[in-house]
């Protein structure tokens, strides 16, 4: 069931209601049960995501190096809270528990690209629409 949902999310970027109905029909599990599983896990989204995904790591090592401020500042710049998408549909801001790059925290991942030891000053570059900051994934 979970890999099924993961595949759907990979294809659509989120779990559309229609797809969950199909899952329920095909697996024979009640729709409420499918929703029950999907909402339990943090990975699943029920709204479309923006063109670019920004994930801020909130692991302990990142926390003691100021990741809460990084998340807050990114949220301010985009005018969203974690889990939301910017009004222009460009960026979705998410927080994750730990990305396992603890040595180079605080870490922000933009569309699969890791940015280590980010500073508040760099965040402006990360949320530029043209993605011009994509090329400076800094070495730890």
């Amino acid at each position, binding site marked *: 069931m*979970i890999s099924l949902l*993961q595949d759907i999310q990979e294809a659509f970027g989120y779990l559309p209601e229609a797809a969950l109905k199909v899952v329920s029909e095909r697996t024979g599990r009640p729709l409420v049960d499918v929703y029950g*599983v999907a909402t339990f*896990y943090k990975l699943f989204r029920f709204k479309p995501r923006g063109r670019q995904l920004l994930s801020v790591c909130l692991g302990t090592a990142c926390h003691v190096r100021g990741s809460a401020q990084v998340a807050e500042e990114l949220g301010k710049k985009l005018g969203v809270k974690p889990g939301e998408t910017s009004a222009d549909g460009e960026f979705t801001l998410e927080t994750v528990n730990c990305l396992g790059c603890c*040595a180079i925290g605080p870490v922000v991942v933009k569309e699969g690209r890791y940015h280590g030891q980010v500073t508040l000053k760099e965040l402006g570059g990360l949320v530029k629409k043209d993605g011009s900051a994509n090329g400076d*994934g800094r070495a*730890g």
Partner: protein
Amino acid sequence: MAKSKKLRSVADYDRARKEASAQRNAYEARISIGCTSCSASDGRALLEAFQAEVARRGLQEKVLVRLSGCHGFCAKGPLVVFVPHRICYLKVKPSDVPEIIEETALKNNVIDRLVYRDPKTGQKCQLESQIPFYKRQLRLIMDYNKRLDPRDIGSYFAIDGYEGLIKALTRMEPEDVILEVKNSGLRGRGGAGFPTGFKWEFCRKAKGSSKFIICNADEGDPGAYMDRSVMESNPHSVLEGLIIGAYAIGADEGYVYIRNEYPIAVEHIKLAIAQAYEAGLLGKDILGTGFSFDVHVERGAGAFVCGEETALIASIEGRRGEPRQRPPFPATKGLYNKPTNINNVETLANIPLILTRGGSWYSHFGTRNSKGTKIFSLVGKVRNTGLVEVAMGSTFREIIYDIGGGIQDDRPFKAVQTGGPSGGCVPAEHLDQAIDYESLSKLGTIMGSGGMIVMDDRTCMVDVARYFMSFLRNESCGKCLTCREGTQRLWEILDDICEGRGKPGHLPLMEDLAHCVKDASLCGLGQTAGNPVLSTLRYFRDEYEEHISEKRCRAGVCKPLIEYRVVAEKCVGCLLCKKACPQDAITGELKQAHVIDGERCIKCGLCYAACKSDAVEHVKSRDLCHA
């Protein structure tokens, strides 16, 4: 990568191993590029640069360039190691590559600026083994990483990989394997530290026609990443441990339950499994021994509680990851109600070593009740962040100061947090404590999976407790009232204290509540959820009291309690803080004392971090002075 032929017998395996090591030795030089955190810091770009340069000079026959497993010194990544000389370069950039090939690969010259330089003595270390970070470690597991390409089963053969499995399948009965693991004294590396051999024995003795073995790679503790590194760097060692475990308990099917947040680890373990099938080390009648075993990969979906055995099983079965009452233990009634054994990644990575070298060899390392080595993820405010493998019984001081190089910027050490959200903080007075399962538990923390987050005087312990409680209240599955509501209430009180609304009765109330959550919750998550509060209260009660009665945060972390100002006498007027301020709240000219405008200041702390002369200080917030 050579496509491996199907091995049908032990003789086939021996031939494959010899071929692989001959192939490897045919190169004059081998260049290993560390992969994991380093790939976060552009290891892959570096690989491409090396490959392009080697191709441009037509050196493909002479120089082997490969992405190796994690070297562990993540603070200085990407690392590049040359074999045979073992010269080690740190923080290598693609632009360094032509010079490295010209000077080191062709002329055997060492490039000075890329080698490690001791920050205290200024002494240079050309070889990895000379660097203090490595010199004081005992790397039984991690040492293999730089010697192999995680994407190539041949390179694992070349270091005698799968020999432990061959030995088990051909020369040992399952009971002998269990006895060997029991003799080694190996205990589970996932958190609770249950002896692995006994765990296997329970499952072996459980009645049932088919059994399961699961590798728990759902490394949930924030701040711990050794399992990710082992999975990414040496996936075959974990797989070999899993197959040996399956043989020992009599399982015919296995699962690797792995965090979805670790894309490279998922990719590498999937590739390793595919290669093992192709080589005949998985599937029907492995190497003609009559033993059959299949493995599947299940990805987690971001739920911390799924690290708990029964929740993990529920998740594989496609249900909400809620733990259930034990007994029955998974060893008798686990996945799909069949006897099931679950081991952590690092535990399994130890198994091939124990089989090839022997349980009694392994038991020489460590303390009386905790054998072998443990990988710690040494992170936070420490200079040499990275993965550290040491014998059990090493002290915090050895790890943080000798290996870790001390605290960043030479600030005072305040505490080290171990065991993730279930663990606790250990203060400076216990720095010389030898670390094993028992000693940590006496200190009010646990081994956990091996996270070691170092904190300095700029870390607020109340804020740390609030951080963990925020994590736990989000991750509580909600089944038990005490855990669901208790962690929420604890977080609310901690938030009050951090925001300046603390009351004198809060501390005893929190203690009561934390004990209640511990005593009345079902699973390991709930039963340890009080620890972050209890352990910080045990050692840092004065900080809590300062927050409540004086409305003061000495670390300068709790924003409502502080204000920043420039001490005019110390300020040299260097403009650094002014440049750092995102609010333009700082005024002042070059070589004149600066001033912070309290109205515009958002207390981001950038000026405080930027100042080189300690002239920016945080003081008690004026808003609270009259409160």
